[in-house]
């Protein structure tokens, strides 16, 4: 069945291709090619939503991306509920389900509409004023209630199941906008053979040719010409034509972001289709052909459903075959609305009257309208629209006052003129200029390699537009290296032209009135609000914008900015350019997070790094923790063990027998070259020249400010070769730090740096039995204490593969770190594990590693230090070469603050109650009875239960800590204050005898 307002013979859709849809639970019939808005209007449905603040009934204002009112929720399933979809953009598919938003319990009866009656409470700046007092009420009363009453749409309950594609593209000429101008520019550029991309946000190309019934180009109807030209462009190898593709952001050096809506218009997209595709295009030249947007008239109740832009009504008729009413009024300050009236009249719709604010305009369309018998009133204003859920009348008055007359209508078409779409030009950092004659901002000074053409450039008339665009397309291509084109410029046989109009409030919404004459529909900003903002001292348009929220809704003021600016300028008594235009920012229209995130989510969000023994650890039931990008085995629970029990067992077993630990994630850098030792001298605090080949040293790296940057054990493999280890998290920045100094400060040094973190798997074997576990597998290395003392390194073979075998300890026990090429890591681990099993050794994870090193007072950079800790603060003064004359940080260390008394120093803490384990990060005070806020003298950096000590242990940074040995300090916690005693940092084997045990 044909919908009630579908006009047979009008529009370009095929009546045979029906599509049914549901809106607020009710079924309707539409046609393929409809938007949701055109399909609703075809069924006579104008009421589609409630406004944000006042909950006023709202209808469809526009037929495009500028739509502020007709925002709906499109629901496919639980996971696909998209809020704030513009009904004017959403294409209809069979089975589409949509809901209106911001209403309760129903669209026609909305409790929130009480806000409309109580509107004096909600005038401009009401958030800043009304809810200031009492203070507690904001969080507990005002905010929750405002959020419940406001808010547009609801979010889906499940993660987004769709996928989003992304592509980079390069072209010589990128044309933004596929109306007559964009198509002409693309044709001219394409003919030169350069790579061209043409993008348009609509499903069909043509722009205003969709409604301009009078346009004829190359002997054809304008829209038909556009389709032919697009077909020609699509057939060319050097051209990419993208429909449903919005240029949302214009960034530096002609980098333009486009979002292509790939499947939102399909009934069943299927898993293989992305929902959207992000195009990041780098263009040699950009042609901006984004057209213009019609403005509404600002008068009382101009937001009633059925009141819409004249060009929108024309689009619904000429493209979709839909009449927006049966008895239509027109209110204009501009010629183009006449063309809408003429088209509707010819389609059989009654035009009740045209009300033109201008005194005696002349234009062929006015004569044509008069000839069709349409009543025309010059010099008059529509001072109010009647009706509530749908407009029912318009009240007309001479613009300078006088008798009112009320005319019944079921729709009002408005046109206050056209605003060039300079958004992308402005985003490119171009400066707009105000044309005083035509009262519009047009592109002025360019900042990038782009050119604006057609309506977006303030060029009037189809003929002039095509001329300008074709020339600009040809020039852009030529400048980008194209050959001379051989095509012919499209010939405009007939076209429409309009300019002028008005800015600001029309009579009836003038100063002093309290009527609701809307400037910004989406944020419910009226002419009165703008005036009030000025009166309250907002003299810059940026302030007016923020105070009133004019232009700050999701439509970014596409229809409202110029009106708001003009009202503010009038109120300030200043010319418009002096009040200024707010800056346009990306995105031009809302962009989904999905399209920006693309494939970078879930497992692809961030890389995961796994060590060679990951599979083995997983098979043993290891629990993993994330350390940077790495997955590290945290602990290895046996059946029935919780984390605490597993860690206790691992800790005891390592000290009693031995343990295996995967230390592969530690950063490893090979420093090689004739000047390697000199380089090491400069980058680390320690002396290196005299370190013998085959020996190791614990090194500290500082920044130039004297604070600890990283640490690690360094082995000297040869006079010119150091094997440097870094912290796990520090590996990339240490490499960067070293490269920086080598390349820029010490380029005279003959040194090469190579990251070898991933080349070597590292298996730490620690504990009294560690040598017994390793020795049977090693060839060519004498592992006796005499031949291979603590802190030495040997090269040889283990399990038949090359190894760099370090004797070193991060547990305080006799220990080794077996480096083998990463590919052999798992096999060597398994061999060592088999040996370890014979002695009863354990595998241990990072938690046990942390406990064991804390028992020995070994620091972890980044945990026990925080970028403000010097070697002296950390008790590591011994590692700073006293005779050295230079190293990075040497001068920083002598800064007055760094040698001052009372600095925080690393110490041990023992709780008075040995069973209490402190919280890491807990603050420490000297006197728990002092008034709040207390003076904090330090904080806990590391804290564990130590099964080996039978008590808790902790490390802490405490002001003047080393002078406080034996003192009692206090750690205030929510459940009471904990008493602690300051101790040394070593809790196990203070003499270090176990290193050779």
């Amino acid at each position, binding site marked *: 069945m044909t919908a009630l307002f579908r006009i047979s013979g009008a529009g370009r859709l095929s009546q045979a291709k029906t599509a049914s849809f549901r809106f607020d639970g009710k079924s309707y019939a539409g046609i393929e090619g409809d938007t949701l808005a055109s399909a609703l209007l075809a069924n006579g449905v104008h009421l589609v939503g409630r406004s944000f603040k006042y909950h006023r009934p709202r209808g469809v204002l526009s037929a495009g991306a500028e739509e502020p009112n007709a925002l709906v929720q499109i629901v496919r399933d639980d996971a696909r509920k998209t809020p704030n979809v513009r009904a004017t953009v959403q294409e209809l598919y069979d089975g589409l389900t949509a809901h209106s938003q911001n209403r309760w319990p129903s669209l026609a009866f909305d409790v929130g509409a009480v806000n409309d009656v109580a509107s004096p409470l909600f005038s401009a700046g009401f958030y800043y004023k009304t809810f200031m007092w009492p203070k507690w009420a904001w969080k507990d009363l005002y905010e929750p209630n405002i959020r419940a009453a406001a808010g547009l749409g609801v979010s889906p309950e499940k993660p987004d199941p769709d996928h989003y594609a992304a592509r980079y593209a390069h072209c010589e000429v990128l044309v933004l906008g596929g109306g007559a101008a964009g198509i002409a520019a693309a044709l001219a550029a394409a003919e030169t053979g350069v790579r061209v991309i043409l993008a348009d946000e609509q499903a069909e190309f043509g722009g205003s040719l969709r409604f301009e019934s009078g346009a004829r180009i190359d002997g054809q109807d304008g829209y038909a010409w556009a389709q032919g030209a697009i077909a020609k462009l699509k057939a060319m190898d050097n051209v990419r034509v993208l429909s449903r593709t919005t240029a949302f952001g214009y960034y*530096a*050096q002609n980098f333009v972001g486009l979002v292509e809506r790939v499947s939102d218009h399909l009934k069943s997209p299927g898993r293989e289709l992305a929902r959207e595709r992000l195009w990041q295009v780098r263009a040699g030249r950009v042609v901006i052909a984004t057209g213009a947007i019609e403005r509404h008239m600002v008068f009382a109740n101009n937001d009633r459903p059925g009141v819409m832009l004249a060009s929108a009504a024309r689009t619904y008729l000429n493209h979709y075959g839909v009449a927006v009413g049966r008895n239509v009024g027109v209110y204009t300050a501009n010629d183009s609305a006449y063309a809408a009236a003429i088209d509707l009249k010819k389609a059989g719709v009654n035009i009740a009257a045209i009300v033109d604010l201008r005194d005696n305009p002349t234009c062929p369309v006015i004569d044509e309208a008069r000839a069709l018998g349409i009543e025309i009133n010059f010099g008059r204003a529509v001072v109010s629209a009647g009706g509530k859920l749908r407009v029912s009348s318009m009240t007309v008055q001479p613009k300078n006052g006088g008798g009112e007359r009320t005319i019944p209508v079921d729709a009002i078409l408005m046109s206050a003129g056209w605003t060039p779409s300079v958004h992308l030009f402005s985003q490119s950092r171009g400066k707009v200029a105000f044309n005083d004659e035509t009262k519009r901002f047009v592109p002025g000074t360019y900042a990038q390699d782009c050119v604006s053409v057609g309506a977006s450039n303030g060029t009037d008339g189809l003929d002039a537009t095509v001329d300008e665009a074709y020339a600009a397309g040809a020039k852009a291509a030529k400048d980008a290296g194209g050959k001379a084109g051989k095509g012919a410029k499209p010939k405009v046989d007939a076209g429409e032209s309009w300019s002028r109009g008005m800015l600001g409030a029309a009579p009836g919404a003038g100063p002093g009135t309290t009527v609701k004459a809307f400037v910004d529909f989406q944020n419910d900003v009226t002419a009165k609000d703008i005036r009030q903002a000025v009166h309250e001292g907002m003299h810059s348009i940026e302030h007016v914008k923020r105070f009133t929220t004019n232009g700050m809704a999701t439509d970014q003021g596409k229809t409202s900015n110029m009106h708001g600016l003009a009202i503010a300028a009038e109120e300030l008594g200043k010319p418009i350019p002096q009040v200024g235009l707010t800056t346009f920012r990306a995105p031009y229209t809302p962009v989904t997070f999905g399209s920006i995130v693309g494939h970078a989510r879930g497992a692809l969000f961030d890389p995961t790094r796994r060590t060679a023994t990951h599979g083995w650890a997983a098979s043993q039931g290891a629990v993993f923790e994330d350390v940077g990008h790495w997955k590290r085995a945290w602990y290895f629970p046996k059946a029935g063990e919780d984390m605490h029990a597993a860690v206790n067992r691992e800790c005891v077993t390592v000290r009693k027998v031995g343990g295996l630990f995967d230390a592969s994630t530690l950063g490893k850098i090979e420093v090689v070259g004739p000047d390697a030792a000199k380089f090491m001298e400069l980058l680390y605090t320690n002396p290196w020249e005299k370190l013998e080949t085959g020996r190791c040293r614990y090194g500290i790296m500082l920044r130039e400010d004297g604070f600890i940057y990283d640490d690690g054990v360094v082995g000297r493999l040869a006079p010119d070769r150091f094997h440097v280890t870094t912290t796990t998290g520090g590996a990339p920045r240490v490499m*960067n730090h070293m490269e920086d100094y080598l*390349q820029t*400060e010490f*380029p005279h040094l003959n040194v090469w740096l190579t990251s070898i973190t991933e080349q070597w798997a590292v298996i730490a074997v620690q504990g009294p039995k560690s040598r017994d576990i390793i020795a049977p597998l090693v060839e060519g290395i004498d592992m006796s204490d005499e031949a291979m003392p603590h802190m030495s390194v040997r090269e040889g073979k283990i399990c038949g593969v090359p190894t760099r075998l370090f004797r070193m300890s991060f547990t305080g026990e006799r220990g080794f770190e077996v480096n083998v090429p990463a590919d052999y890591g798992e096999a060597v681990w398994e061999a060592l594990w088999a040996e370890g099993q014979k002695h009863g050794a354990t595998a241990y994870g990072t938690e046990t590693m942390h406990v064991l090193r804390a028992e020995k007072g070994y620091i972890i950079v980044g945990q026990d230090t925080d970028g403000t800790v010097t070697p002296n603060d950390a008790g590591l003064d011994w590692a700073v070469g006293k005779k050295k004359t*230079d190293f990075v940080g040497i001068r920083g260390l002598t800064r007055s603050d760094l040698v001052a008394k009372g600095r925080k120093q690393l110490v041990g803490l023992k709780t008075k109650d040995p069973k209490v384990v402190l919280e890491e990060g807990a603050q420490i005070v000297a006197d728990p009875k002092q008034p709040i806020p207390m003076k904090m003298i330090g904080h806990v950096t590391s804290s564990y239960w130590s099964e080996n000590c039978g008590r808790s242990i902790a490390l802490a940074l405490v002001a003047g800590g080393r002078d406080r040995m034996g003192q009692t300090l206090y750690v205030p916690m929510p459940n009471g204050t904990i008493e602690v005693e300051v101790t040394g940092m070593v809790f196990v084997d203070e003499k270090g005898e176990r290193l050779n045990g």
Partner: protein
Amino acid sequence: MLLIRCPYCEEERPELEFRNAGEAHIARPTNIAAESDDDFEKFFFIRANPKGVIYERWRHIHGCARFFNAVRDTVTDKFVMTYKAGEPKPAKLPGASK
């Protein structure tokens, strides 16, 4: 996203491949240990923050890994030129407006 010309690779590459490394032409004193407090402060802490032309270091970290110098306009973000580490501050800038 900016395009940055690496003077070692001799081509423009996307910003993603690079990392900024702070102000350029601040040489580490050869006898840094003897620097006065004031001089060390100037060397380590004080940085220009100009509106307009800035000389800064960049690293082609996801490319050739070299550090180099660049002249950039902080108002427009435009790169005026890039040159190799160790080369002197250019006396004349190409197409300099101010």
